[in-house]
């Protein structure tokens, strides 16, 4: 069973490293999590992104949720904001595509054009 003592040990280890998420240079990933997004499967998408980010130890990535982005028929929607670059909107994302977006776009810096809203429309 996981214990709070274990959490404390993790904190002591992590405390030394600066929390890069809070600064302006962080990559932001936003998942649409309104009724439409949730019904279309946004929760496992968000979990897949978080897991991929954790697995790869990407400390400069902040993952958050937002409400309805406005194109419910294309949910689940994921927006990726890299500082200094234009926002990229991915549509009809599933957990597999989400992991690919993290590795290709965030790690390798290559936008996964085939999943973008531009490709879907």
């Amino acid at each position: 069973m996981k214990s709070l003592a274990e959490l404390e040990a993790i904190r002591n280890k992590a405390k030394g490293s600066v929390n890069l998420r809070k600064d302006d240079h962080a990559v932001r990933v936003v998942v649409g999590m309104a009724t439409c997004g949730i019904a279309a499967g946004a929760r496992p998408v968000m979990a897949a992104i978080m897991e991929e980010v954790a697995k790869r130890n990407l400390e400069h990535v902040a993952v958050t949720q937002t409400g309805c982005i406005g194109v419910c028929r294309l949910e689940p929607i994921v927006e990726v904001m890299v500082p200094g670059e234009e926002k990229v909107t991915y549509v009809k994302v599933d957990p597999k595509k989400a992991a690919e977006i993290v590795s290709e776009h965030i790690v390798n810096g290559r936008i996964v054009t085939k999943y973008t809203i531009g490709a879907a429309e």
Partner: protein
Amino acid sequence: MREIALHILDIVQNSIVANATRIEVIITEESDADKLTVVIRDNGCGMSKEFLEKVIDPFTTKRTTRKVGLGIPLYKMAAENTGGSFDIQSEEGKGTVVTAVFGYSHIDRQPLGDIAGTMLGLFTSYEEVDFLFRHKVNEKKFEVDTTQLKNVLGDVSFQVPEVYMWLSEYLKEGEEELNQ
């Protein structure tokens, strides 16, 4: 929605939009009473009497992108379809309490679903909000208060990979134990 946990995720977003700083999610499963009760309580901005009366109507929403809001109507229907009940109490400036009661053994009751994943997503996405999650299954209880976790973590974020993995396991284990 396929799971009650997804309704919970959806309704909690309303609390977030209402600028709540503390949100409680309390799930009580009682097989003797044949009931599953979900209480979501927040200290957000609350709703006026007039808005509260209309909020069950799908054509009522505070959203500006569209003119319909289905979160509450879907949740209410899911509860009532199982012979249960649905209630919202709200006071402006104080907060809102949404209570849904489901018929536990009713054939149309959705499974609770991945509540551990739901809470994990909420805890990590809205770190500035304090969450109390309490899940009772008959005599067994699992409870997580994020203020306690934050006391341990200090300014270390839930999104730090090791912390996230710990929290994920902690929630999963707690839920598994309830269902053993």
